[in-house]
């Protein structure tokens, strides 16, 4: 049933790509995550996640135009695919169903225990 395999970090990256919409390339994604999640991101780990998700079909990518900056090297822009969107939705739904399944008393207990 569950065809979507997504790690926690991958999910974050995928969401970030979705946030950045048309402007999602390596440096931007990294900075966006660091800004929003308030955590350091290793470029290697992020690139790995991007390539793997592209291979799985959650992401698509294309080169931007070559510019004189970056030593003439093109940027690779990532875009979330419909499949990727579905995966994200699936994860969101399952999380929500989990949240919903928690009996109210659990949190009450915690509160009362304080």
């Amino acid at each position, binding site marked *: 049933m569950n065809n979507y395999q997504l790690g926690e970090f991958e999910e974050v990256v995928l969401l970030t790509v979705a946030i950045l919409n048309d*402007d999602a*390339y*390596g*440096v*931007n994604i*990294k*900075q966006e995550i660091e800004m929003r999640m308030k955590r350091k991101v*290793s*470029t*290697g*780990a992020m*690139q*790995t996640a991007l*390539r*793997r998700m592209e*291979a799985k079909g959650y992401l698509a990518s294309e*080169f931007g135009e070559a*510019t*004189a*900056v*970056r*030593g003439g*090297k*093109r*940027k*690779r822009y990532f875009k979330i695919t419909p499949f990727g969107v579905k995966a994200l939705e699936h994860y969101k739904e399952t999380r929500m169903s989990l949240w919903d399944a928690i009996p109210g008393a659990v949190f009450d207990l915690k509160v009362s225990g304080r």
Partner: protein
Amino acid sequence: MEDRKTKYYPPNWATKWFLWFCHADFAEDILGDLEEEYQFHEPAVSKLMADFWFVRQVAGMMRPSLIKPFLPFLKLNNKLDMIKNYIKIGLRNLTKYKVSTAINLLGLSTGMAAFILIALFVKDELSYDRNHEHADEIFRITIKNFSGDGETLSRHWAFASAGHGPRIKEDFPEVTHATRFFPWAFPDVIYGDKRLPGEQVVFADPDVFDIFTFPFLQGNKESAFSNETSMVISEDAAIRIFGNDWREQDIVGKNVKIEARGAGLSLQITGVMENMPRQQHFHFDYLAPFAIYENFVNNPDAINNVTGNYNYLTYVRLNDAEAATAVEAGGDTFFDKHIADIRGVKAHNYYGLALQPLTNIHLTSNISGEIENNGSLSQVVIFSVIGILLIVVACINYMNLATSRYTRRMKEIGVRKSIGASRGSLISQFLTESVILTLISFPLAVGLATIALPSVNAFMDKQLSINFLQDFGLFLSVFGLLALVAMLAGIYPAIYLSGLDTIRSLKGESTFRTGKVNFRSVLVTFQYVVTIAIIFSLAVLNAQMGFIFNSDPGFDKESVLDVSLSNDIYGKKDAFRNELLANQNIIHATFVSRIPTGNLLDSQGASIFLGDSLTPVNFRLPYIVADENFITTYGIEMAAGNDFERYMDSDSIGYFIVNEAAAKAMGFPSAEDAINRSMNYGGTDGKIIGVMKDFHFESLHSEIGPMIMVKNDNYRRISLKINPVNLSETIAFVEQTWAKFDQKNTINYNFVDESFENQYQGEERLSTMFKAFAVLAVLISCLGMLGMVTFIVERKTKEIGIRKVLGAKSPHIVWLVSQNFIWLISVSALVALPIGYYFMSGWLDTFAYQVTISPVLFVVPILAVVLITLLTILYRTIKAVYINPVKYLRSE
């Protein structure tokens, strides 16, 4: 995010490194990202810190999903498909050209089979005496006897005297352990009502277990000789005495009795050793403390003797293998110390020490009185060379046949090349074919070797076995051999054929040089050299063996029976002889100490009256003891003087008969001059009463030297000249008579002509094995020749056709094909004969009497080779000659 201008550059090497490992699809944008980010860091901190950051990022990129795929793995897949294809094509080619495949299989498998057998034999020969922990420090004490000048070696003994071992241990600090082995009296071993007659109980010093490593099955080496009535036995002996279930009987501590010469002794078994391995130059089943023998003999003089009675196999262990030379050098001092001057000359002029490394004894020692038959290093070398030659010749065959098929495969190669096959893949294709062929011939080779193994074992007196599971080393080496053969045979055709010119090979033109000297001719020449050299060696070997067996040894060896006397019979030997002579079929009987075909006894001090003065004899003058019937029994001719007579036994003075060589060495111009001369031999004064003509007492390996025959009654055996007509009856009679005189011992006899031939057993063995392998080598070479001839004829078919059209006769055409071979054979003969001559004259030099290498022996191998070649050529050309030339000319 706006672009910034690139102002700063990360370290170049890190970029290169990144590009080296990163997947090409990702490299550009990731690097761009990194460089962009690098710009943020640079202005803020120092360049060094920014570089450090960059390098760390690059290192962080080395992740499986980002790096390049590992190239060899990718290529392997492709390769596997190609290899499948190579194998398929290879198998097709092998089945297509059935004749040459069969020839190759035959050649390679017989070559490898012979090689495997030879390798097993050589490995076995080389592994002798290496099972002892201290093998490198163990030496055998051997004694040299000189003729009074410290130089002229009169005899070299494998055994030492009883006193040598202990005294050498005492005198030389380098010698840490010493032991003697003395197989004394061959006693009967008795346990309960079981009696094992004539077992070889060996007395040894306690050091024996510290020198040699004899693993114990029961008991241990410390308690082995714990008291003077101990005995250690081998597993075999345990089985003989106690039966197969000896392990259940708790035999350590049990007593067995040994009995000899009427005396008996009870010994306690203190241990059971593993059987001594076959690859050891001595084998004993019973070891008992030397002290038993010492007490029994109770004669300190005999036990401390250092001057003769060489019956004690003596081994020492040194503290350092290098010390052997020092001990040998100390031999002079040793003998001078322990032996008084001999006739005014220091003892070291008569005696010398020689230490033989244990591991060399089997292959390199062949001196007087070796305990068992030793191997021979030259035999090992000869067989190794033959083994390698056989493999090489088989490989050359393959090369020749493979390249000679080229006409048939030219188009295939051309097509492959034009489609885009690289030279490498063509080489792989041809190598695959040779590998397939080798792999097929290997099981055949093992099968052949297994079939031949029992007869080789029986013949060489070995117990070799092919067992790949147990002998991993053998498995590895055979595997290596396979790889080597496949490479050796395949590499030349592969390189040669893959180098063909594409366009010309597609056109069907020969692209080979047609010059006379090329690598193939060299190969064929090599085969011819091997063949000619082997046939030549075989011819010389045969000629020499024939010479030996047909040469007149100077005595009559036919129908002479030699019987060794037991102690019981010795006491009543005259009655025994008379009883034998009563039979009409026993013509003569003589008592002797040694018989012709054996070794002479050692030289004793001698001197002779020349004129008025007593002159010491300064050459080796060994002796035998014989009675008055020796000369008639053995049909030896007298040169001058008379035979012994009966009464001389009891006479107080000595009577001597010398041979012509001795008379000459003493300085007498003729045999007559020696008669009635007074001489002293071995302390007995007497006179020479006769001179006999020279005869070969020892084998033809040694020259007929001076010898002397003395008369006393110290005989060991009786020789009987019998009538060959009723042979079996006569032998039965001799056996009956023996049984009448001695019930305890069984008779031990042999025929002199058999012992005569046994002297050359080593050579016989060598020649038979050599013949077998030589036939193989020649056979394999012939197969190769067939391939070569086929090649030449095929190449020349058009030429033959044109010549025939122009009116050439068949002989011309045969000559056309043959001339190249005749030329090759001449070159080969020029190389092979000197090599063969060099080796064979070296072998002949081991004989004092050699056949002369006549020109015929040189011509025979050449003629044989020429004949074989011509027959092959005829067989192949006849087809080409009788086919209508139009058939192969019209295709152009």
